[in-house]
């Protein structure tokens, strides 16, 4: 195990440390504090975003009702969040299954586009190929600045596709993009806490969509 860069300043602190109970106690306090912080952030973010969630969810329900489909995308952990959202809409624990596709799942398409036209176009090219007016595009970027996500929003907006952007910090470039119809921002500067709160936001959005579809059926 290599030493941390600063440990030469404190030669006796790290290498001689043997009190594992003290360490585990510290770790455990830190875990408890972060769990509380995460839940608090999720609750506050949902409260703060409720109007936007309801508007977005209602418009999504209308589009699903007319045969629209959902396309989700993002990079890294956000790619898995996009895949998780698709799983929730496609295989819901209750309610009606809804057509949703993740643009991060097909290794042939992703590598072909990255190799031939560049990584910044891997999602926009798929939007061009698949999506049509009446569909829904959902992009995830904790920084709000992922170029391939922003490019996909631009293509989607040109085609009459409803666009939703999930981001953290203060929204990044997503906050000022005219191609994004609904912005859901988790006000945190921790990528991990942002992703956790985004999961809660997506779950809330999904339940609003399901409610919207039920109400629509009843009319």
């Amino acid at each position: 195990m290599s030493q941390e860069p600063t440990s030469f300043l404190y030669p006796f602190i790290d290498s001689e440390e043997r009190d594992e109970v003290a360490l585990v106690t510290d770790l455990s306090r830190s875990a408890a504090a972060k769990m509380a912080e995460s839940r608090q952030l999720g609750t506050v973010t949902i409260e703060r975003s409720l109007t936007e969630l309801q508007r977005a969810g209602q418009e999504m329900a209308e589009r699903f009702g007319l045969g629209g489909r959902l396309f989700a995308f993002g990079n890294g952990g956000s790619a898995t969040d996009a895949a998780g959202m698709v799983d929730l809409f496609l295989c819901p624990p209750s309610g009606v299954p809804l057509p949703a596709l993740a643009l991060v799942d097909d290794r042939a398409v992703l590598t072909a586009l990255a190799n031939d036209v560049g990584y910044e176009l891997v999602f926009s090219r798929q939007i061009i190929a698949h999506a049509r007016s009446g569909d829904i595009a959902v992009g995830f970027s904790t920084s709000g600045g992922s170029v391939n996500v922003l490019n996909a929003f631009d293509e989607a907006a040109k085609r009459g596709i409803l666009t939703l952007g999930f981001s953290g910090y203060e929204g990044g470039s997503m906050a000022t993009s005219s191609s994004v119809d609904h912005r859901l921002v988790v006000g945190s500067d921790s990528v991990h806490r942002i992703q956790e709160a985004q999961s809660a936001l997506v779950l809330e959005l999904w339940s609003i969509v399901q409610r919207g579809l039920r109400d629509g059926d009843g009319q």
Partner: protein
Amino acid sequence: MMSTEAAAPEGATDAAAWGLALASLAMARRFAAGATMWCVAPRWPAHGSHVAVEFVHPVIVGKRALPAVHLEAGELVGAVRLLSCPGDILLAIGGSGDAAVEAVVRRCEAWGLTTVWIGAGPHPSGPGADHLIWVDGVDMARAARSGELVLRYHLLWELTHVVFEHPGLLTTEQQCRDDVCIACSDEGRLAEITSVHDGNRAEVVAEGNVETVDVSLVDQARPGDLVLVHAGVAITRVEEAR
């Protein structure tokens, strides 16, 4: 065993946080010794990919990349058996009724892997894991979507890297059993049969080590069977759950 494997000290913190702390200490020690972490999440592949990318490509610049691999659903038992080395980590994500997860987890002791199982809902009644990281009070379908599950593995990553800042504690994992005569103890060790020589002798792997044992007490022993070995004899087959 390590003193820290005791229950959380009264009032010190909550049990869930204590469990995360212990798992992170164990994971950091295994990583420091060269382990790879194999991630399986057959029902929740997005979470399997997410946890692996956290370790391989840290969100905080300067944190070391750690070897973690998400194995897509398929023949998971065969894949982990072939790819893993004794001392590696198996991180599973799934509910307690997830047969594909159970099938892998139950063999890890024989393969010499440290197991961390993240799930929700009822606790597993079959094979346990070395570290059970459980979301109580909600079912798996909700925990997987509400942020609770991702919170658990984010914290495992964060705490593992905190342990790396304490190199003095990375190498003190005690190897128990060294001074215990297995033949004299009452203990049966879990082993997986790798090949059967004739009706009576078989090669097995136990705690990651290959040894030859007497299997004459086990009816029709076959490669892949799990058996309990005591003093060089396979005394019984361990049946698969359900």
